[in-house]
């Protein structure tokens, strides 16, 4: 590009004015290591700003997926919750709804995430610890008891056994008199990021991908208001990735699911409008906002140009945001209220459709009710008091934001090219490529913190010695015994023959890659088959997965 008068002017300013004062000794880069200029000017805008930035609700959606954004409707305040038994979590759900929350989000415990029933030997000590234990349809019914599933949208964070949990949910709704087509919500289902970052799996990669495909296909026909997958960068970021890695790996995962569904014979416009995303909101404010804007632009372009989507709704990258758990400190925990507020603001200025704000005590344990209330109030203060929702994409056109958006977009395409060289995302995951990139980034960041180059308040700067003990939520160990009794009770009281028949049929169906497993899982759910039994039946056909340990 030829040198323009403005460029020359910017250079003159830097030489004559800016350089006159020495810079302070600090790291002028984002938390992800992107170098930041002292000043951005018009020269940093995209070459064709009208095309690249555009208008809200119009291609390429950089400024937001909806024309009215928060002028039309605020984001959904959706706090993730789950611990102990279904009854206990049901009480927390009702508490959140009473305090103005507008959607529910379910956290499952580790055994549920890994496909183990609560009485499995590997579940010992883990039942209800990090989320709610759900073994059967009965547990799912108890979880949503008294909550009208045709009125409240529900999100479920579960992946490897997602199809089973969806079957439980559909049957639980059926027993409330609510049909699948009335159900609104999201189930995470993003298995690729499990192998990449979250590491809760049940099967090898290929059969796990088939199960995802079966669900997407079944939901495309039966559940028009349901998001069968939430393609998630959150866990990738929590595992230590950079913003660019989160962006690139998440979108590449999403494009991989699109390719798979198209390869199964679905029309892209039959399912793409139901795909949704989930991103982290980390502490580097502008980088996060740029990340969301870049994500929308890339997704719209790839869906239209590479995958031939014609329905405009297929192009819209709608996303949920959660503030960064990894940014919270155990030291001086009240400071986490401030971190979370800033991160939440980044999510809002980035145009999120829904938001979870973390509680200040989460570096210590699951949150107490008081901490959860402050977290929800943080969103309400942003929505009601700050005025940031008065106008759409208030940072659009900012020289810095637009330059950083373009930079992150370029970084994502660099990763796409590397992944394509490895044979696509499934192969890249099998080769451990994204896993290694993330571990390297996590290690680099840790070194920056330990050298003191990256300053963390309360950790390596402004420290105060020991903190006073905080009240934390303790999970009553009696939950585990209760839950073990519940699942064993279901097994002893059900029609044993019907359960065995449903399991046999499921196993047979698994052997035929052309058979969609969803109807078989629904039948098994209705026959009171447990999660662990279904997983084991599928593992007899699919096998199990273990990662090659590397660091």
């Amino acid at each position, binding site marked *: 590009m030829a040198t323009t008068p403005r460029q020359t002017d910017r250079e003159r300013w830097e030489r004559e004015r800016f350089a006159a004062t020495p810079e302070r000794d600090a790291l002028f880069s984002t938390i992800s290591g992107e170098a930041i200029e002292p000043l951005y000017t018009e020269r940093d805008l995209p070459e064709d700003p009208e095309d690249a930035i555009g208008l809200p609700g119009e291609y390429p959606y950089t400024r937001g997926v909806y024309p009215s954004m928060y002028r039309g409707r605020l984001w959904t305040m959706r706090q993730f919750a789950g611990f102990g038994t279904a009854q206990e979590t049901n009480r927390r759900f009702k508490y959140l709804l009473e305090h103005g929350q507008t959607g529910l989000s379910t956290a499952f415990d580790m055994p549920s995430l890994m496909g183990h029933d609560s009485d499995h030997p590997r579940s010992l000590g883990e039942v209800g610890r990090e989320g709610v234990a759900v073994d059967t349809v009965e547990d799912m019914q108890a979880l949503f008891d008294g909550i009208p599933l045709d009125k409240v949208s529900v999100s479920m964070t579960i992946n490897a056994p997602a199809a089973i949990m969806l079957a439980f949910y559909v049957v639980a709704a059926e027993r409330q008199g609510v049909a699948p087509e009335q159900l609104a919500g999201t189930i995470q289902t993003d298995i690729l990021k499990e192998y990449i970052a979250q590491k809760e799996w049940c099967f090898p990669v290929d059969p796990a991908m088939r199960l995802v495909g079966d669900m997407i296909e079944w939901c495309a026909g039966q559940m028009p208001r349901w998001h069968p997958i939430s393609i998630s960068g959150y866990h990738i970021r929590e595992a230590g990735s950079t913003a660019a890695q989160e962006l690139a790996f998440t979108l590449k995962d999403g494009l991989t699911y699109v390719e798979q569904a198209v390869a199964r014979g679905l029309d892209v416009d039959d399912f793409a409008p139901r795909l949704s995303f989930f991103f982290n909101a980390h502490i580097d404010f502008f980088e996060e906002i740029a990340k969301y804007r870049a994500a929308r632009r890339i997704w719209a372009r790839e869906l239209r140009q590479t995958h031939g989507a014609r329905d405009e709704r297929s192009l819209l990258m709608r996303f949920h945001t959660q503030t960064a758990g990894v940014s919270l400190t*155990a030291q001086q925990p009240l400071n986490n209220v401030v971190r979370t507020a800033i991160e939440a603001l980044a999510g809002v200025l980035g145009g999120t459709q829904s938001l979870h704000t973390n509680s200040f005590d989460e570096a210590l344990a699951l949150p107490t009710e008081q901490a959860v209330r402050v977290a929800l109030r943080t969103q309400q203060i942003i929505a009601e008091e700050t005025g940031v929702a008065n106008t759409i994409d208030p940072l659009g056109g900012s020289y810095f934001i637009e330059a950083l958006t373009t930079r992150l977009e370029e970084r994502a395409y660099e990763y796409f090219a590397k992944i394509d060289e490895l044979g696509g995302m499934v192969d890249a995951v099998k080769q451990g490529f994204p896993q290694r990139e993330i571990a390297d980034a996590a290690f680099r960041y840790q070194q920056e913190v330990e050298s003191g180059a990256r300053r963390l308040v309360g950790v390596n700067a402004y420290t105060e010695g020991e903190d006073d003990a905080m009240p934390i939520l303790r999970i009553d160990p009696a939950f585990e015994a209760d839950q073990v009794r519940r699942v064993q009770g279901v097994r002893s009281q059900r029609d044993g023959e019907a359960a065995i028949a449903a399991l046999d049929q499921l196993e047979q169906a698994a052997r035929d890659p052309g058979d969609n497993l969803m109807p078989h899982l629904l039948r098994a759910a209705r026959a009171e088959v447990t999660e662990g039994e279904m997983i084991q039946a599928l593992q007899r056909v699919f096998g199990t997965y273990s990662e090659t340990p590397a660091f």
Partner: protein
Amino acid sequence: MSAPSEKKIRVVVAKPGLDGHDRGAKIIARALRDAGMEVIYTGLHQTPEQIVETVIQEDADAIGLSILSGAHMTLIPRVMELLGAQGVDDVVVTVGGTIPGEDVEELKRLGVSEVFTPGASTQEAVEFIRNAVAQRA
């Protein structure tokens, strides 16, 4: 760095239970290796039995157990019990993760040498293991 003649400290870094959070385990494994130790990383989802077997097979001097799932008061006492049952009493056991203060005391009572909670530096862990192993030698 250790002198070439010195025997390298052997450390098993393990993830007990179903918890998949391995950022910390991988960072600490790398830091220990960079400090000149021989690191055996078990990978994820290990039972206490598998961990103790690895410790014995690898003739480890120290163990680093990384756990963020809240199941530490079930899994770590079990590791300690199995080590005792196998007559392994000369291995330095350290734990890293989100462990509430009162649980830290209880784990130490069971024979855990040190617990590193969020914000601890890898250098602290390296120094601790180096000194504790030297003292036991």
